[in-house]
C-alpha cells in the first residue's frame, strides 16, 4: 500500500490583491502589468555596457588607466541596483478598504450629504483639511473606497491608490511613489552619469585609436562603437533632461503629478505646504528621509477558509508546488493594452514630460 503525501498549498495575500499588478518570486517582486518597455530599458543598458566593457575598456585600460573600467563598473552596478529597486518595490500602494470600513465611511458621507437615489452617480466626495494654515481637499476614491491622503493619487494603469504619487513610468515598469521615488531619482541620476561617461570615453577611444590606425579602420574594427555613441547620444538628451527636471522637483518637494496639475503654482493657488522652504532640507527629506515599509503584506498567509480558487487575472507566478524559495519564476504574460478605469479618478499621464527636448526613441 502506498502512502500519499499531500502537500498543502499555502495561499499568500498577493494572490488575492486587487489591482492590475504582477507579482513574481512568490510576492517578493511587484510590478505593473506591462513590462515590455522595462525589458527594453534593461536590454539597452546591459547591451551598451557589455559592448563598452568588451571593446573600448580593454583598450583604454591599457592605454590610459585601469581605473576607467572600474568606475564604469561601479556606475553600472549602482544604476542597475537602483533600477531594479525602483521596478520591483511597492511604490506605496494604499490597500483598498475592507467592507466594514467602506460601509462606515459611506454612512458618514451619507450623514453629511444626505442619501442619493438609486442609480444616480453621487457627487464627488471631498473633505477639507487644513495643513500648515492652507486648506487641502481630500478626494474620495470610488475604486478603493477610501479618502485619499494628501498627495496620493489613483493610478489608472495599475488601478491602485499610491501615496505621494509621482507618475507611472513605463521605462521602469512600475509607478513611482513615496516608497520608490528616491530609487527612481538615483537611477536616472546614475544613468545620466553612466551615459555621459560611456559617451565621453567612446569619443576618447575613437580619437586615440584614429591617431594610430585612422578613423575608418577604427570603426571597422569595433563597429559596436557607433551603436554605443548613437544610443548614448539619444539617451543623453532625454535622461539628463529628466534628471534636471526631477532635481528641480526634489528641491521644491513637489511631485510630477502636482507639477503637471499646477497644484501649487498660479496666483490663486495655495503655496506648497509640504516644502520646508529650504532646498537642502527638501532634498534631505525626499532622498534621505525615513522609508516606510510596505503595508500590503504581500507574503502574508491567508487563512484557509479564505483561500478558494485563484482568480486567473491577478497573479503570474506558478509556484503552487514549490516551497517558498526565491527562485525567480517569471511567467509573465504578454503585454496587454491599458484599460482605462471607468471611475473618474485622476488620470496621471503615463510618462513624465521631457522638458527642454523632444522625447527620443531609445533610452540606454
Amino acid at each position, binding site marked *: 500500500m502506498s502512502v500519499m503525501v499531500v502537500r498543502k498549498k499555502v495561499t499568500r495575500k498577493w494572490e488575492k490583491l486587487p489591482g492590475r499588478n504582477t507579482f513574481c518570486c512568490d510576492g517578493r517582486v511587484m510590478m505593473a502589468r506591462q513590462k515590455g518597455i522595462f525589458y527594453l530599458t534593461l536590454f539597452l543598458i546591459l547591451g551598451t555596457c557589455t559592448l563598452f566593457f568588451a571593446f573600448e575598456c580593454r583598450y583604454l585600460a591599457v592605454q590610459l588607466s585601469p581605473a576607467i573600467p572600474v568606475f564604469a563598473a561601479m556606475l553600472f552596478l549602482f544604476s542597475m541596483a537602483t533600477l531594479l529597486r525602483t521596478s520591483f518595490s511597492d511604490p506605496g500602494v494604499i490597500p483598498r478598504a475592507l467592507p466594514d470600513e467602506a460601509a462606515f465611511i459611506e454612512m458618514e458621507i451619507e450623514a453629511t450629504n444626505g442619501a442619493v437615489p438609486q442609480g444616480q452617480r453621487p457627487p464627488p466626495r471631498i473633505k477639507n483639511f487644513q495643513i500648515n494654515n492652507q486648506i487641502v481637499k481630500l478626494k474620495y476614491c470610488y475604486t478603493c473606497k477610501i*479618502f485619499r491622503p494628501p498627495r496620493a493619487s489613483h493610478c489608472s494603469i495599475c488601478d491602485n491608490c499610491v501615496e505621494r504619487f509621482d507618475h507611472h513610468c513605463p521605462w521602469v515598469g512600475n509607478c513611482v511613489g513615496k516608497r520608490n521615488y528616491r530609487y527612481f531619482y538615483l537611477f536616472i541620476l546614475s544613468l545620466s552619469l553612466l551615459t555621459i561617461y560611456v559617451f565621453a570615453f567612446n569619443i576618447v577611444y575613437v580619437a586615440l585609436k584614429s591617431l594610430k590606425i585612422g578613423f575608418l579602420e577604427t570603426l571597422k574594427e569595433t563597429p559596436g562603437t557607433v551603436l554605443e555613441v548613437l544610443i548614448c547620444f539619444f539617451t543623453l538628451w532625454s535622461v539628463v533632461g529628466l534628471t534636471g527636471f526631477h532635481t528641480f522637483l526634489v528641491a521644491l518637494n513637489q511631485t510630477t503629478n502636482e507639477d503637471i496639475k499646477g497644484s501649487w503654482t498660479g496666483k490663486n493657488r495655495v503655496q506648497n505646504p509640504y516644502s520646508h522652504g529650504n532646498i537642502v532640507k527638501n532634498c534631505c*527629506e525626499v*532622498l534621505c528621509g525615513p522609508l516606510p515599509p*510596505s503595508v500590503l503584506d504581500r507574503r502574508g498567509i491567508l487563512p484557509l477558509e479564505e483561500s478558494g480558487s485563484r482568480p486567473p487575472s491577478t497573479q503570474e507566478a506558478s509556484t503552487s508546488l514549490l516551497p517558498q524559495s526565491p527562485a525567480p519564476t517569471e511567467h509573465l504574460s504578454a503585454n496587454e493594452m491599458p484599460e482605462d478605469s471607468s471611475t473618474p479618478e485622476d488620470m496621471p499621464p503615463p510618462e513624465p514630460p521631457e522638458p527642454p527636448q523632444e522625447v527620443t526613441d531609445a533610452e540606454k
Partner: protein
Amino acid sequence: MATEVHNLQELRRSASLATKVFIQRDYSDGTICQFQTKFPPELDSRIERQLFEETVKTLNSFYAEAEKIGGSSYLEGCLACATAYFIFLCMETHYEKVLKKISRYIQEQNEKIFAPRGLLLTDPVERGMRVIEISIYEDRCSSGSSSSGSSSGSGSSSGGGGAGGR
C-alpha cells in the same frame, strides 16, 4: 449577569462582534501618520475618554518617532545609498523597528485595558495605516445581541505586525 472577560481568547469565545469603529487619520500636520483623538460616541459607555485619548496620543507619538527627520534618519539614508540599498537586505530600518514596538504596545493595551472592556484594537498597519479599527464585542451570554454591524468577524489578533517584505 455579565461575564468578566479576562483575556483575548475568552473574549472571542464568549462574545460576538457587535460593531466596529474606525478612527481616521488626522492630516492637519501634513502627511505624517497621526490619528484623530476625537472620542467616538459608540465607545461612550465602554471606555473612559481619557484612557482612549492616551492610547491614541501614545500611538501618534510612536509614529512621529518613526517618521522623525533628523540626524539618525539621514545617516541611515546616506549609508543605505552608499551601499546601493543592499544593506536593507540584511538590516531592519528604523521605521520597521518602531512598527514592531507599536505592535507590542497595542497587544499590551488590548490585554490590559481594551479586552476587559469588550473592545479590541487592530494594528493600523493591518489596515494600510488608514484607520485604527476598534471592534466592539457584546457578551453572548448576557444580552444575546447578534452582530448589528458587519459579520466578517475579523477581530484579528493585534500582535501581527503586518508589514511584510517590501
